[in-house]
């Protein structure tokens, strides 16, 4: 799930569509079908959604597409998120790339920078969620089309907060007060929050909430902005829950899915999670549905409750032998009615504006916070080609874990992180 969200962030891998240039007239995003000239076969890598039901939705895309275009073959492969980045690297290095792939939004600039991806030219103004297009942009060129997106919000157990006598928190102070009340009054081994050591999408956004920045751009180069009082305050706040025993003892080594499992088991009362996490918790424990409430991420001292906008791009690879067919398939997947079959199952929002309108998300009170969070209270990480490597190497987790364990101060952690980031940005 952790990688999952990472991928999500990568947003718009523009499908190869445009790059193949020549082809029949410019593939229009809503009618991929195009002329009858499509033939041959393509391989498509989709990140494994983990559920057979959602896998079937994707497989159905291939079946429907093949039926609409006789003579074509679409071969879908599911790749687990945790191995996906390595798999892309080895595929590119070995020259055995898929024709089309889903790619985490934070990875798209990295692979585009290597020249592995096809530039996407048919990106219309206002057609896609704009932060996702930003995430796919490198040197003013767009390399991915946004497929879906999401942002984490607060989910909580209504019954447990009631027992503790607190309202759902809307800012940091209320969150801390609510956590202490839960720890004191609920008992039964229930911890207040599931703040873990291996989930950068939980702790990095707290820096925005405190009014800080993660990195700033100067022309072509990026510079870390972590060495700031705001960032130190944010990391200190995040770690203080663990230090005060308000998060499970093992959580320092947990990834996001572990926290979700704990929430589904009733071991924690509040969690920062996305709509996909909410969906998977409900799917595991249907009886929890009426006990779970959702709200926007609590706002920090800056007054902002910014969350990370993650998602997936659909991209095409330079070495693909059938870019035309790949482009047509990407556009087919992005048609609003096709798109929503997938996003509604997985709990993400569509990456296209038409798709969001068609989704009905904004009318569902339980899911509305996730949509609002994405549309109005979200941001993306710096779209630097180095970002994917920074995440892959886990440079953030280690320092946060040390703060959680009391082995260093938040101030030291952000200083170390800033120098590590600058080293990577420079190298």
């Amino acid at each position, binding site marked *: 799930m952790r990688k999952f969200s990472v991928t999500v962030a990568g947003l718009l891998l523009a499908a190869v569509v445009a790059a193949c240039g020549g082809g029949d007239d410019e593939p229009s995003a809503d009618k991929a079908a195009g002329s009858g000239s499509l033939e041959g076969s393509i391989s498509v890598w989709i990140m494994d959604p983990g559920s057979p039901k959602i896998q079937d939705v994707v497989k159905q895309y291939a079946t429907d597409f093949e039926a609409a275009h006789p003579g074509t073959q679409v071969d879908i492969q599911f790749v687990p998120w945790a191995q996906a980045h390595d798999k892309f690297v080895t595929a590119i290095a070995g020259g055995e790339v898929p024709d089309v792939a889903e790619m985490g939004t934070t990875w798209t600039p990295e692979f585009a920078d290597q*020249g592995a991806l096809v530039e996407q030219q048919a990106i219309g103004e206002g057609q896609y969620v704009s932060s996702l297009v930003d995430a796919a942009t490198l040197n003013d060129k767009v390399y991915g089309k946004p497929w879906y997106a999401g942002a984490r919000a607060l989910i909580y157990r209504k019954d447990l907060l009631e027992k503790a006598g607190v309202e759902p928190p809307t800012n940091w102070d209320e969150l801390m007060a609510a956590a202490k009340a839960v720890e004191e009054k609920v008992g039964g081994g229930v911890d207040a929050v599931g703040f873990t050591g291996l989930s950068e999408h939980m702790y990095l956004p707290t820096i925005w909430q405190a009014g800080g920045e993660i990195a700033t751009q100067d022309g072509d180069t990026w510079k870390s902005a972590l060495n700031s009082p705001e960032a130190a305050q944010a990391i200190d706040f995040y770690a203080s829950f663990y230090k005060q025993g308000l998060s*499970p*003892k*093992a959580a*320092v080594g*947990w990834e996001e899915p572990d926290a979700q499992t704990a929430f589904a088991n009733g071991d924690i009362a509040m969690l920062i999670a996305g709509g996909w996490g909410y969906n998977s918790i409900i799917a595991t424990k249907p009886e929890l549905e009426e006990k779970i409430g959702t709200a926007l991420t609590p706002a920090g001292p800056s007054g902002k409750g910014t969350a990370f906008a993650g998602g997936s791009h659909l991209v095409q690879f330079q070495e693909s032998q059938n870019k035309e067919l790949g482009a047509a398939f990407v556009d087919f997947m992005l048609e609003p009615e096709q798109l929503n079959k997938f996003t509604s199952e997985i709990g993400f929002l569509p990456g296209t504006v038409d798709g969001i309108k068609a989704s009905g998300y904004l009318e569902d009170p339980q899911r509305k916070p996730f949509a609002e969070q994405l549309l109005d209270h979200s941001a993306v990480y710096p779209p630097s080609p180095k970002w994917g490597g920074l995440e*892959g*190497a886990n440079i953030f987790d280690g320092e946060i*874990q040390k703060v959680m364990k009391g*082995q260093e101060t938040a101030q030291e952690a952000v200083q170390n992180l800033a120098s590590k980031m600058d080293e990577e940005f420079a190298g």
Partner: protein
Amino acid sequence: MATAPAVVSAPRPLVVRRAVNRLTLPVLMLLPALIIIAGLVGYPLVRTIYLSFTDTGLGELIYGGSTWVGLENFKEVFANDRLRVALVNTVVFGTVCVIGTMVFGFAVALLLNQRLKGNLFFGIAVLLPWAVPAIAASAIFKWLFDSRYGFVNWALVNLGFDSFQDYAWFAGRFSAYVAIFITVVWQSFPFIALSLLAGLQTIPKETLHAAAIDGAGPWNRFRLVTLPLLRPIVAVLVVFSTIWDFKIFDQIYVMAAGVPDRAADTAAVAAYREGFALSHYGLGSAVAVVLFLILLAFSLLYVRLIGKEGAE
């Protein structure tokens, strides 16, 4: 003058031809295996060594054009805290695992060597952990050591050790290593135990009887008769175990991922992470080469020890 060289030269080609004939067949028969070994072992080894002297990143790996940087990567391996810690972890934790595996393997072998009822069954059962893929075993053990739902904490709490309620095994380096140690030993003792069992069964009963008649107790019989006779086997097994335990990957990759600051990573995992996660292929290769040299040194040491024993 004409005859002399003829006489001398005639046998020479014959000798050479004979030697060639004698060699041709073996060489031809070995060739397929040699080609496969050269391709699967030789090439990656040479390439890794080459990469370790370059600044190869993802771009250079795909399109070429890396720069020769001499020993820079190796300096970095020893200057970088994280990588140095990983190398120390490898040697210390690997050695502890070798000792644990040998001791436990020996104990099981001695038990199986007793003529007990059901030993055939136990002999087969002992093999089973060896048949479990390392990655599956690691996932299972990680679950057994889960803080809230794991069997280990449940059992310890029920035995009266209340401090193990919700004990987080993987939140610290030492406790994580305890859990990983148990996993590694569980997985690797079967081979050791069965090899030693085979060795034990070659020891003539008469020798042990004679020792018993001379008044040697069970401990002295083991120490003065069994152990010396098994020394060659033990030496080979120690070499094998060292190679296995120094390059363990799966168990660390799966179980130590949550240890704060990855403080429990070993060299193999660090090399992988440096190369594939950070795209520093040159530096990653340098870590791999250092690990290779460490293993080579240990292996040569043992091989020499075995050789000396034979000469004595």
